[in-house]
C-alpha cells in the first residue's frame, strides 16, 4: 500500500505482515511512549494497547509528541488514541487510563505479543519486567535522563532490570530531567530494536545499551 511504500526499502512483504500483525502493549504514554506509539502506527501495526493514568501538563510541551496547548489537561491515552487513528483509522487502539500497578488486569496479557517499557520510575519498570516473565512476553526496555538513554530487549525470566535497579530508588533523570530531543531518539531506537527482534535480526537481546548523545559514546554496558 502507498502508506507503507517508504518502509519497503528495508522490509519485504512477508516481514511487513509479521510487523503489522504484532499485538503491542505500550506502558506509559509520555515522552518515550508518545514517540513509540507514533512510530508503531507508522510501521503499520494494527493492534496497540496503551496504559497511562496521566493527563498532559504544561511541563510536557517541551518533549511529548502529542502534547500541545490544545491537549493540556486532557487524558494522555485518549489524546494518543485520537492521534494514532488520524494516522491509521483502521487500527485497533485499546486504552486503559490507569496506573500500571499490581491491580492491572492480567487478562490483557495473553493476546499481547510484545511489551514496551515507557514508564518513568523504577518500581513500575520492575513490576512490568515481573509480569512479562510470568506471561512469557519480551519487554523492550527504555530509560532516559538528560543527554542520555538506555535500551535493551529483556527476555522473560532474565530479570536484568531487577539486577541493574537493585537497591535503587531513582536514577539520573531526577536531576538531569528530560530535554526535548532525548525521548524521540531513544524511543525510536527502541522501535528499531523491536523491528530487528521481531524479524530475527541481531538485536540487543538481553543486553543494556547505553546512549550518550552529548559525547557520542554508545556501548553495551551489561549483558546476560
Amino acid at each position: 500500500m502507498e502508506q507503507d511504500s517508504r518502509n519497503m526499502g528495508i522490509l519485504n512483504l512477508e516481514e511487513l505482515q509479521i510487523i503489522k500483525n504484532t499485538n503491542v502493549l505500550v506502558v506509559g504514554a509520555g515522552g518515550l511512549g508518545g514517540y513509540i506509539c507514533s512510530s508503531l502506527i507508522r510501521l503499520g501495526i494494527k493492534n496497540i494497547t496503551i496504559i497511562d493514568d496521566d493527563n498532559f501538563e504544561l511541563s510536557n510541551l517541551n518533549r511529548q509528541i502529542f502534547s500541545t496547548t490544545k491537549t493540556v489537561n486532557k487524558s494522555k491515552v485518549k489524546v494518543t488514541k485520537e492521534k494514532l487513528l488520524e494516522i491509521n483509522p483502521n487500527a485497533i487502539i485499546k486504552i486503559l487510563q490507569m496506573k500500571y500497578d499490581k491491580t492491572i488486569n492480567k487478562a490483557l496479557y495473553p493476546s499481547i505479543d510484545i511489551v514496551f517499557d515507557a514508564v518513568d520510575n523504577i518500581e513500575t519498570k520492575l513490576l512490568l519486567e515481573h509480569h512479562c516473565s510470568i506471561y512469557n512476553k519480551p519487554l523492550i526496555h527504555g530509560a532516559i535522563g538528560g543527554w542520555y538513554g538506555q535500551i535493551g530487549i529483556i527476555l522473560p525470566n532474565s530479570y536484568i532490570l531487577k539486577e541493574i535497579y537493585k537497591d535503587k530508588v531513582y536514577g539520573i533523570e531526577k536531576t538531569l530531567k528530560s530535554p526535548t530531543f532525548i525521548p524521540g531518539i531513544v524511543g525510536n531506537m527502541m522501535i528499531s530494536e523491536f523491528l530487528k527482534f521481531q524479524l530475527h535480526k541481531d538485536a540487543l537481546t538481553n543486553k543494556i545499551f547505553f546512549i550518550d548523545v552529548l559525547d557520542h559514546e554508545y556501548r553495551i554496558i551489561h549483558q546476560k
Partner: protein
Amino acid sequence: MITVKLYSAIRKYGGKEVMFEYYDGMTIRDIITELKIPLKEISIIILDHFDSTTDIMIDRKVKESSLIHLFPPMAGG
C-alpha cells in the same frame, strides 16, 4: 596506571576520565571512595570487559593496567 571512565551524571565527580596509581591489593571500592561517589549513584561497573552490578563488582581487585567504566542508574520515561 589504572584508567577510570565516568559516564553521564557521575562525571561531576571527576570528569570523563581519571587515572590512578596502582598499588597492591587495590579494589574498585578504593577508587570509588577516593572519587567520593555515593554507591547509590552507580548502577553498572565494567572492569576489563567484565560487567556487573555495583554490589558484585565493588570488592574486586584491579590490575596494574585495568580499565574501569562506571555507569549511573537511569529510569526516566
